[in-house]
């Protein structure tokens, strides 16, 4: 790999340096570390090369959606920016320094692990989406992130900045061809200013040969809110290590999502919700299913700092295990240092419900259709909570197709 020298903001340059240092110092993670426990990495980042330029972009896909503007990132290279009114979309290399500066608040530490180090040390370019103070737009910015050069590593970076009192809506779709191996370390960071609102939907629809080790961090100011929706559909290894730092009093974080693993997919979600200010709330609602020999992991840590009094924080993670060979781990955790808080978590892992099956069959549905309906209903609750309902139909189709296909091919 080689760093690509280019003019950049001072803090970005420092991060690059820190990234290179961390990359040299850190080993590849192993499953001995708790946060990597279920991941078996059979490659070394240091052996991978990065494309010199973007490959040929993919055409429209099943999650292609129209927005008021957006951009494409192919193999880590930003192109095809469609500039909407009100919000500024630029490559970081061309960004307004003041706008870029606000993004520094939500940096993902380069020494988080070797992947973050690689991202910072070798990242080609980033995309900055900036909503100025008080700006509200009436539709989503759509970012189409692609990996198209086989056997190569790409490091797409998205920086979202919603200045005070602004209202920003962003849909990110991650995709790559079904055939071929692709390595991606995407980072998405969001700075949400005082009383600003961010609605963000991320659709992870990489091809099954793709290894994606992503990090994401959202930092909330006073009375700020984020609603993040996640759909985990694709990737051989689809990992998302994400942080929500609730730093401003009165701020709220809502996370809704779903994932569905088949074949030998591993979908690995590591969530860290940090309440660092009083009167803050967070709610996480994730539903997942696994079939064939796929596995899913959800670990969610809600940490409530001593100064964060009068906090409400909840997380729910429900999992359907549809095949004997499949498995789901669900480990919600609370770490509470304050004394005036309301927290809770619910976690379930299990097969389809026999009572629901009986009820549906007693109405005349055969077992196949009864189970199909139950799976559909299971995900419907999560789909209904996604912040961008314009994505609901495509996401619904994608998860239900996985189940129907497995039924039809006799894999269940």
């Amino acid at each position, binding site marked *: 790999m080689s760093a690509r020298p280019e003019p950049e903001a001072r803090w970005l340059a420092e991060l690059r340096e820190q990234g290179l240092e961390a990359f040299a110092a850190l080993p590849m993670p192993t499953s001995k570390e708790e946060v990597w426990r279920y991941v078996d990495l059979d490659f070394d980042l240091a052996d991978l090369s990065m494309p010199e330029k973007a490959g040929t972009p993919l055409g429209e896909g099943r999650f292609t959606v129209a927005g008021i503007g957006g951009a494409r990132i192919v193999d880590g290279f930003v192109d095809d920016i469609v500039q909407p009114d009100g919000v500024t979309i630029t490559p970081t290399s061309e960004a307004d320094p003041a706008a870029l500066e606000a993004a520094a608040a939500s940096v993902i530490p380069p020494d988080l692990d070797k992947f973050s180090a690689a991202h910072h040390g070798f990242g080609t370019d980033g995309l900055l989406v900036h909503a100025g103070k008080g700006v509200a737009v009436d539709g989503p910015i759509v970012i189409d992130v692609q990996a198209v050069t086989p056997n190569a590593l790409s490091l797409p970076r998205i920086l979202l900045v919603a200045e005070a009192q602004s209202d920003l809506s962003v849909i990110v779709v991650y995709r790559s061809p079904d055939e071929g191996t692709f390595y991606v370390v995407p980072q998405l960071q969001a700075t949400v200013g005082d009383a600003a609102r961010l609605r963000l939907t991320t659709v992870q629809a990489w091809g099954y040969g793709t290894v994606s080790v992503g990090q994401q961090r959202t930092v909330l100011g006073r009375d700020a809110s984020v609603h993040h929706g996640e759909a985990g559909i694709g990737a051989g290894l689809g990992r998302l290590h994400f942080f929500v730092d609730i730093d401003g009093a009165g701020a709220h974080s809502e996370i809704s999502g779903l994932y569905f693993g088949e074949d030998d997919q591993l979908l690995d979600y590591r969530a860290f919700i940090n309440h660092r200010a009083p009167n803050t709330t967070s709610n996480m609602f994730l539903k997942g299913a696994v079939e064939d020999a796929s596995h899913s992991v959800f670990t969610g840590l809600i940490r409530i700092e001593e100064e964060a009094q009068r906090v409400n924080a909840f997380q729910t993670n429900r999992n359907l295990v549809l095949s004997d060979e499949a498995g789901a781990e669900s480990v919600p955790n609370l770490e509470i240092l304050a004394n005036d808080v309301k927290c809770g978590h619910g976690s379930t892992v299990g097969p389809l*419900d026999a009572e629901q099956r009986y009820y549906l069959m007693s109405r005349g549905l055969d077992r196949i259709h009864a189970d199909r*309906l139950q799976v559909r209903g299971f995900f*419907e609750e999560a789909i209904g909570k996604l912040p961008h309902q314009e994505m609901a139909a495509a996401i619904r189709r994608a998860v239900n197709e996985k189940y129907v296909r497995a039924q039809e091919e006799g894999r269940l």
Partner: protein
Amino acid sequence: MSTALAVRDLRASIGSVEILKGLDIEVGFGELHVIMGPNGSGKSTLCHVLMGKPEYDAAGSAVVSGTEMLGTSVDVRARHGIAQAFQYPTEIPGITLRELFEELAEQRADGAALLARVDDIAARLGTARFLDRPVNEGLSGGEKKRSEIFQLAVLAPAIAVLDEIDSGLDVDAVREVAEAVERMRGPDIGVLLITHYNRILQYLTPDRVHVMVAGRIVRSGGPELADELEETGYAELVAEFGIKQEDAATGDDFLAGL
């Protein structure tokens, strides 16, 4: 014309516990039969065994419209014409009642006709508001029972098995449910109503009343039998037919857990 339901020497057990111990009952088309009995007598088990719930081992015979149902799967029985109104209807999150009907319609030869009558029946029973919310979710006890009756009216089975359709309801709700049952009656359907109390019978006139104790029908008679039971209670019958009280209690808890 065959009967709606003909049950002969029906036995059923769960694990090593025998719950139904040789039960006979015959419900003709156009008839309403009532089974009464104390807790633990096996009434709910009878419903589930007729419906084919997998955890029961059943022997004997249960014929619906001339076809033997034992040994067939739940959905085959449903399509052949058994429908049960559940005592504790299961919630189906994320699927509305209308979506359930639509899915059923796709599976049935008479699907179009089924869908065509949904809204009419809903209007008649005042249950239209149940259609566009998830099945049984957020419904009160009384609403769940009405939703069950509504579904049965749409399904138009040969034999409707109503399991304690009156339990847990206040007086007004019992009357409403009874009225819905009354509207369901007709020459093409037999109704088997299972109940612990006779209060729903203030609003319904059964053709036959059967008393079930310890997994058997111990007495059968006309509507007057229900009145008689109201006066005497089950204690005498329980003593006469030898069910031990501890068994009854165990059975009750056991059934409640199903």
